[in-house]
């Protein structure tokens, strides 16, 4: 099915797209049909700067997405708090 559900996050950082690095302003997160990944549904994240076509996209299986969340939390948790902004 098409889930239609979409979550948004305002983000600050950079991503590397087809034309090189650019500043990111938002992430769109949804669990729906992938374009490329060999799965019926995937957790998809589009990192963008708001301009169409300026996008860093990933399509992850649900298990992979949870592994990624856990890895991010481990990485953030392993450094001194004063380094985190």
């Amino acid at each position: 099915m098409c889930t239609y559900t979409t979550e948004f996050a305002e983000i600050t950082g950079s991503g590397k797209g087809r034309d090189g690095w650019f500043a990111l302003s938002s992430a769109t997160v949804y669990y729906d049909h992938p374009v490329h990944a060999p799965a019926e549904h995937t957790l998809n994240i589009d990192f963008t700067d708001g301009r169409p076509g300026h996008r860093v996209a990933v399509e992850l299986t649900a298990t992979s997405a949870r592994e990624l969340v856990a890895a991010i939390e481990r990485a953030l948790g392993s450094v001194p708090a004063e380094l985190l902004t």
Partner: protein
Amino acid sequence: MDDGMRAATIRIAGAGGDQIEAYAAGPAGTGRRGGVVLIHHMPGYDRWSKEVARRFAVDGYDVVMPNLYHRDAPGADPDDAAAAGRANGGVPDERLLGDVAGAIDHLRGLDTANGKVAVIGHCSGGRQAVLAACNLDLQGAVDCYGAFVVNDAPPERQLPMKNLVDQLPNLRCPLLGMFGNEDAYPSPEHVDLLEKILTERELEHEFHRYDGAGHGFFGADRPSYRPEAAVDGYQHIAAFFARTIG
């Protein structure tokens, strides 16, 4: 045998008179024939959807598939445009109707037109095909596993689209529906309810349901592809188009 075909990206007037991109395919011959509006699925105006357009052209119809995300990302790759469309909140029903109406007008204006036009959509396009059939002058409609035709999404999901129950009495043409029995949206119970509503109102419909198939069984480039269901489904579509727009 004349089996030539033409296919190209064109511009049509969509909702509000906007010039939007569309993919057009049709036989090369000049004989009169019906038209098909193909509504792409939520992942957008992609390679598979264009293949489906060309399939119906091979079957002898003029086909137009409006790019429903054109306004969100003019000139972008289909997957980037789909992502932008999603980020912008999806395709509003009113805009969808305007874009499909523009595609219908384009088809009826072709020198080869016989005046008859059907609509077909997959996935989100299935619901949109039913929506179009309740509001526009069409001779046939094909709903391939469209969700949220008779049911709303759970309230916690806060989705923008509503079910079409209040519009179904306005259905103006025969409806062909194809559904996988392993699908959850629409589930077999949702399809039962749609069939019940149409039967009670004596609205012409023909449904086919497939065991062992879930959502997206026509999608030949996806793991959900079920060749037996798809082959049988395409035979029903061919017969339906021959009867309604041939």
